């Protein structure tokens, strides 16, 4: 029984390691820039719909707050990827 448990432990560690190193700095940088671009486009779409009175004002505020939070995270990631 010990052998089986050891085997499972090894494969699990292998998979987590494989997963972990999948994210090279270049990947992280690219992903962060796409996220930044995505949120810029989100805000553009929001402004267009706000102009036509499609979305209530409270919701628009929430989208802007979410955009701010995600952009901070993305820029931090970009800086981290850049320095690595």
């Amino acid at each position: 029984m010990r052998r089986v448990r050891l085997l499972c432990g090894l494969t699990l560690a292998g998979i987590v390691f494989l997963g972990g190193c999948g994210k090279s700095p270049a990947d992280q940088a690219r992903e962060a820039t796409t996220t930044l671009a995505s949120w810029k486009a989100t805000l553009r779409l929001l402004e267009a719909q706000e102009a036509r009175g499609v979305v209530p004002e409270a919701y628009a505020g929430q989208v802007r707050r979410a955009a701010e939070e995600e952009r901070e995270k993305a820029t931090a990631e970009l800086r981290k990827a850049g320095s690595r």
Partner: protein
Amino acid sequence: MSKLFEIALGVITGIGGFLEAGSLTTAAQAGAAFGYQLIWAIAVGTVCIAFLVEMAGRLAAVSRHALPDAMRERFGIRFFLLPLAAVALVSFLVLASEIGGVTLALEFATGISHRWWAIPTALSIWLLLWKGTFGMVEKGTSMLGLVTLAFVVAALTLHPHPAEVARGLVPRGPTHDAARYWFTAVSIVGASVSPYLFYFYSAGAVEDQWDEGYLTINRITAGVGMTFGGAVAVAALVCAALVLHPQGIQVDRFEQIPFLLTSPLARAGFWLFVGALFIACFGAALEIALQLAYLVAQGFGWRWGENLQPREAARFALVYTVVIPLAALVILSGIDPLKLTVISMALTALSLPVTVVPLLILMNDPQYLNEHTNGWVSNVAVLAVSAIACLVALVALPLEILGS
């Protein structure tokens, strides 16, 4: 006449009960990031859940056992504990995701942060189970769930090219960002093949006292109901593919998903989205909390039944009375609801072999199904989807958790 009513009801349950936090967010993410490329994942998930729901209904109609009851009896307590723990954990996470969906709908509608809504939402879910009957939970949620058809209306107003949508049905590899593609595919399958859907369905068949006479109704309900449900999920994907994908918007937060309906349907679209999200997630939360109570009560032989007064099935009532506030605490803790939902869907896919194989074994056991055991098609289809989904999740999940 009543058989026709039962069929109509069954189909409505399929449509109304299908779309919830998981299938909506994964469809929106897939459409936004990969356009029509992942429609095949919804199709695969829908076929698989249609088979599983039909099997669970057939098991209940022929053997008069709901799924947990039959599993404990057939496999004994030792081999019952593993699927019990897996289904309970996954269902709990999905319950928290559904409560998250409800609180976000309330946040969009009122501007008050979703964390303030966690406790009131938990209280109202609990109150409906405390006072309600099984029929009310099942039929009420699916009737109201028809509001999710708003996504079909929105998709049609965006005039998608039928040929391109059809091409999305053909399984293919990703054109870019392979890791995210496979993770989204597996979370779509996890969202469609949620264990609570067929566990709850089997409990419903027993509560409604189904027998062999219901086998045709069961097949129609499962087939037509789930296919329509899948179509609603495809509609949500199409909306994301036409509204977000061209702008290069990828879905990282719930706040981006309302655009699916506000672009095509303007102001009405916004309130339809809030209504659809609220009702779909609220209905799913009711079903999951109830299913968790069935799971534990039937596993240990306690008195159970939503039609009984809480006093008459005290431990059954205790399970959902404890589980609902716990799930609300997860939302209260400030976890990002979208990330919680998507990870829960991938974990559902990871646990598929453990939650599905016991049902497959039961469906091939003449002791329970007499002459109504499974054909090889459903056996192979469900086993293949479960095995592949589990393997892909095993690789994709660490990548996603470590990546974000």
